[in-house]
């Protein structure tokens, strides 16, 4: 499972403006995973940043 698999196709729709924020949030999650953060913390960040 490669990290590069996570990307968004984007487009010109209204959701497109959200993509940079989502990717930034995802990068933050990956950073926490790489640093060995506890699973509960990682999943909390993932779900919190995915909720809107």
């Amino acid at each position, binding site marked *: 499972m490669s990290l590069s698999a996570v990307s968004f196709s984007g*487009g010109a729709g209204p959701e497109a403006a959200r993509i940079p924020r989502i990717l930034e949030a995802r990068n933050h999650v990956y950073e926490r995973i790489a640093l060995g953060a506890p699973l509960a913390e990682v999943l909390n960040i993932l779900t*919190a940043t995915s909720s809107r």
Partner: protein
Amino acid sequence: MPDVLCSVLLYDPETRTVHHGAAPSLPEFYCQAINGAEVGVGRGSCGTAIATAQRVVVEDVLTHPYWTNFWKLAVTAGLRACWSQPIISSKHAVLGSFAMYYRDVRKPDAFDLEFIETSAHVAAVAIERTHTEQELEQHRNHLEEMVRARTSELEKLNQELRQVNHDVSLLRGLLPICASCKRVRDDKGYWAQIEAYIVKYAGPVFTHGICPDCSQRLYPGLGRR
């Protein structure tokens, strides 16, 4: 109040139940009610997604058959739509589910589907990483236990070897012996029968008999018969 509320449930394949992973935006009572629930087709969006390893989209929990036993709970929590994506490991095992809840009837568009898929993928990376660390920890503990057992065994053998070396050194050194009674003096200064001394430090078992010369001297008539 967020428009979409996300949650992660972790799957235990041994008990076929789900356990709370994360759901910071969902009500506490809802998370508690779901925690420990069995998976299966018709057991909500997540229970079905995990059981089938397929994404489940429920646009309206009030009308969908998968939510027959759970819609009251969802409505009490102010939830109306629930889409659930199974979290699949790199070895194709189901690890849990990533769910998106809405407060109104909602159908996903292409962006939503891509979003939920990538979210489940990120969750899979995080969960697999944790599982790998747990396995490493188990292997490390097992290895340390083996090293401890082996070290203890070697210490015991070393102790026995030291004792043998000590005994051998006593037999190799100068041994004071009485010229008259033939008793010997040990390293602590005690006089002992030579048989007892040798038994103690070298380990043989003596059997007593009489040699031909002594037999001749003690029983002069015995050998002539």
